[in-house]
């Protein structure tokens, strides 16, 4: 049962998505009848399932929602913008209730009540006399929870002594047309108690006048049962109105008419009635209890016909497959290495075979990664909701435009993009878009626009978030950066450099920190989150026309393009995406800053120098850095750092292995990987390294340049 319940919530996600899609179409004025039907059905199905699991709050709300939607579906109400916006709020609440039900958390009434009230207004406009039928529809639906203990033997224990009933039953033709079968009704009667039935064939015409489709038989039955008349009537529920039925307590027990076993072959589909006891051919399990354990796992279920064939697979299984393929990649790297070591001739068949193996491995890897991919649609829909709430909160009118919703991205990437995107959407509404008055004064439409686009571009995923607001106020950003000592007062910065200042830690753009964007979370946090996914983020902005953030992400999380470097005889992998450039450090470009810090002049910009070996605690700072290899790390913004390494070894794809599961987070380290020689190498988290290192960059201790080289002192015990 728990499994079906879980499946129900998964289905709810799909239904909510359909619902939101449909409402979006309605909002865009693109809705046809089928859209409205789909929307209605989605809510209806959620209600149906919720009823089965006794989720009363969900059922109640879904029912109201459905009733309101039905007004539109039935053509009694027009889907104006206002009406649709009530429906959109309705879908938000419905999503909350689904989530609440799933997690067993109640959704506060204060959230639901306003929407319920709005829906009720649609159902029964306050001014007009409300329709009585509306009330009945609401009361009529009685949710009842079902417990799936398939114990079908539920005949209530009889308290009353059995007594006799005489039942007269004469079907009309319509009874048969509707697919009813008197035999089964008598069989059901016989389950209530001893039953005798006799057939009245007086109405059967001569054979030549017989119309096979017409009913011409009647029956009289005597039943002895402790059950009430209502229980007997229940059995005839479906044929009520399709037959002459007469149920009355019998005065005495005697079958009225004689049995006619030799009746000439009765017209189809009226069969002869068998004696009261259940025939031997009764299907198994009738009125018997079936083991609930068996119920769920009947193996021989025919495959349901589905238009698109998909398989739902446990994510764990996929991850296992991803891991195994990762192993394969590593193994293959090891094999290459041993073949090299064995000195195999370059043109030997072994090499050719290996090459093929390599290609196959990559293909398998790509295919496996595709399994984890999901369209960004669900993410965009969530953002739609964030946008609505944020806009309502702040009193701006905003519309969301989405593009490329079917672009597929790794599931984990989608999950981890939610927070940064939420923040950026709120930013766009709060800081990006002008208030309606300003927009009006500028001759812009008073409704602001926010764009969300996803696309594939040269092996990466690009997600753009844009607004048509005021654009970045570079003057103000620059002043603020000078105020905070982030840049020199006389520095000349290109527009893009100023824009990138936004990514500096703690750089908040709004003069007043608003309720919406809150405080503390700045674009630096967004950037860290994106970088943690192996991504990059950049800004472009035009005054008066708006701002667009562009996020570029790797297709998958499981592999990473990295630069393999050596530092303090350890091998470290630096994500290629974070490396801006590599250079050799010239003495001239190195400047002492504080007593223990250095900066590097990179094209007239001073960048803090970080000694990776020292930062990771592998050794004491080198002290002398001239001629060392530098990795310029960071994005196109001002907060980059020059990281000293001992040597660059290689550039290659590595398979990412988590560290956190068995150990925990390590500062400055994102994950681990296994190299061709089977050794583990750590993968650097550049953003984390820089933020951890900031402020306590240690360079030469007391004596300058005295100890040029510490042996790998930090090599752990």
């Amino acid at each position, binding site marked *: 049962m728990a499994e*079906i319940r879980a*499946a*129900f919530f998964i*289905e709810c996600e799909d239904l909510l998505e359909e619902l939101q899609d449909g409402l979006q179409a309605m909002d865009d004025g693109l809705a046809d009848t*089928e859209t409205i*039907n*789909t929307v209605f*059905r989605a809510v*209806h*199905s959620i*209600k*149906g*399932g919720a*009823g*089965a699991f006794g989720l009363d709050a969900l059922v109640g709300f879904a029912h109201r929602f459905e009733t309101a939607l039905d007004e539109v579906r039935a053509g009694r109400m027009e889907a104006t913008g206002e009406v649709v916006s009530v429906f959109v709020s309705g879908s938000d609440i419905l999503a909350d209730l689904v989530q609440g039900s799933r997690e067993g958390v109640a959704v506060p009434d204060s959230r639901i009540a306003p929407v319920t009230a709005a829906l009720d207004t649609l159902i029964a406009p306050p001014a007009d006399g409300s329709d009585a039928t509306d009330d*009945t*529809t609401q009361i*009529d*639906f009685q*949710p*009842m*929870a*079902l417990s*799936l203990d*398939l*114990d*079908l033997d*539920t005949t209530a224990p009889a308290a009353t002594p059995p007594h006799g009933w005489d039942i007269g039953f004469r079907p009309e033709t319509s009874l048969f*047309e*509707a*697919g*009813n*079968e008197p035999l*089964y*009704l008598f*069989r*059901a009667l016989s389950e209530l108690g001893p039953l005798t039935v006799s057939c009245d064939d007086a109405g059967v015409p001569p054979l030549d006048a017989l119309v096979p489709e017409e009913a011409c038989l009647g029956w009289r039955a005597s039943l002895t049962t402790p059950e009430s008349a209502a229980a007997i009537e229940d*059995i005839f*529920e*479906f044929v009520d109105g399709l037959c002459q039925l007469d149920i009355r307590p019998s005065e005495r027990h005697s079958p009225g008419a004689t049995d006619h076993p030799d009746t000439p072959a009765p017209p189809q*589909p009226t069969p002869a009635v068998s004696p009261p006891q259940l025939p031997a*051919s*009764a*299907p*198994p*399990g*009738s009125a*018997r209890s079936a083991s*609930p354990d*068996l*119920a*769920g796992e*009947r193996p*021989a*279920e*025919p495959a*349901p*016909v*589905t*238009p698109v064939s998909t398989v739902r697979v446990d994510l764990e299984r996929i991850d296992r497959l991803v891991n195994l393929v990762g192993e394969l990649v590593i193994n293959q790297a090891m094999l290459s290495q041993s073949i090299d070591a064995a000195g195999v001739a370059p043109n030997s068949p072994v090499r050719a075979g290996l090459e093929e193996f390599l290609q196959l491995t990559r293909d398998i890897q790509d295919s496996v990664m595709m399994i984890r991919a999901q369209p960004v649609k669900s993410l965009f829909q969530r953002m739609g909701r964030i946008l609505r709430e944020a806009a309502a909160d702040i009193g701006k009118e905003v519309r969301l435009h989405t593009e490329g919703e079917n672009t597929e991205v790794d599931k984990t990437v989608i999950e981890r993009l939610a927070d940064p995107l939420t923040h950026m959407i709120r930013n766009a509404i709060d800081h990006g878009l002008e208030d309606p008055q300003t927009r009006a004064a500028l001759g812009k439409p008073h409704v602001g626009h926010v764009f969300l686009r996803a696309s594939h571009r040269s092996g990466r995923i690009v997600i753009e978030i844009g607004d048509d607001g005021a654009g970045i106020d570079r003057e103000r950003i620059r002043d603020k950066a000078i105020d905070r000592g982030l840049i020199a007062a006389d520095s000349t910065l290109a527009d893009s450099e100023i824009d990138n200042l936004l990514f500096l830690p703690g750089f908040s753009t709004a003069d007043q920190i608003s309720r919406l964007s809150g405080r503390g979370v700045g674009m630096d946090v967004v950037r860290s989150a994106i970088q943690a996914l192996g991504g990059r983020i950049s800004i472009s902005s035009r005054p008066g026309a708006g701002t667009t953030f562009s996020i570029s992400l790797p297709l998958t999380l499981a592999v990473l393009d990295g630069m393999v470097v050596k530092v303090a005889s350890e091998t470290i992998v630096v994500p290629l995406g974070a490396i801006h450039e590599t250079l050799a450090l010239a003495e001239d470009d190195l400047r002492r800053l504080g007593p223990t810090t250095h900066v590097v002049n990179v094209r007239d910009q001073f960048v803090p120098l970080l000694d990776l070996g020292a930062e990771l605690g592998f050794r004491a700072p080198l002290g002398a850095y001239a001629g060392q290899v530098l990795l310029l790390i960071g994005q196109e913004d001002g907060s980059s750092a020059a990281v000293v390494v001992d040597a660059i070894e290689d550039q290659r794809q590595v398979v990412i292995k988590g560290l956190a599961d068995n150990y925990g987070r390590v500062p400055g380290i994102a994950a681990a990987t296994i190299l061709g020689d089977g050794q583990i190498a750590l993968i650097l988290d550049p953003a984390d390294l820089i933020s951890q290192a900031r402020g306590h960059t240690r360079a030469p201790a007391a004596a300058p340049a005295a100890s040029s080289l510490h042996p790998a002192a930090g090599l752990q015990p």
Partner: protein
Amino acid sequence: MDGAVMTLQVLAVDDSRTMRDLLRITLTGAGMDAHLAEDGVAGLDVLDRIAPPDAIITDLNMPRMDGLGFIAQVRARKALRAVPILVLSTESAAQLKARARDAGATGWIVKPFQPDSLVTALRRVAG
């Protein structure tokens, strides 16, 4: 393999996966064979593939082909004219009765249903 005992064949048509799961479990739990379809079109497809079932259960509100259309199509097939059809809906019994009757259904079940009431209803129309 069942010898003389025939297992009741039931086709259940509902667009909600949850409902289909519940129907499947209820039917198989009662010793019946459940054939499932997610809308009227799929339901007709199933009917093309299998021998006429002993009963059909169908939801009313479904995409592509709704329950009413489905019932009409079923009744239009000679071999299926007498197959009992139960309609599933969240409407009240009174509303449902009228709709089911009009559509040519045999009986009706108000959703959410109790497993035993579904089975009882099936037994009344299909033995």
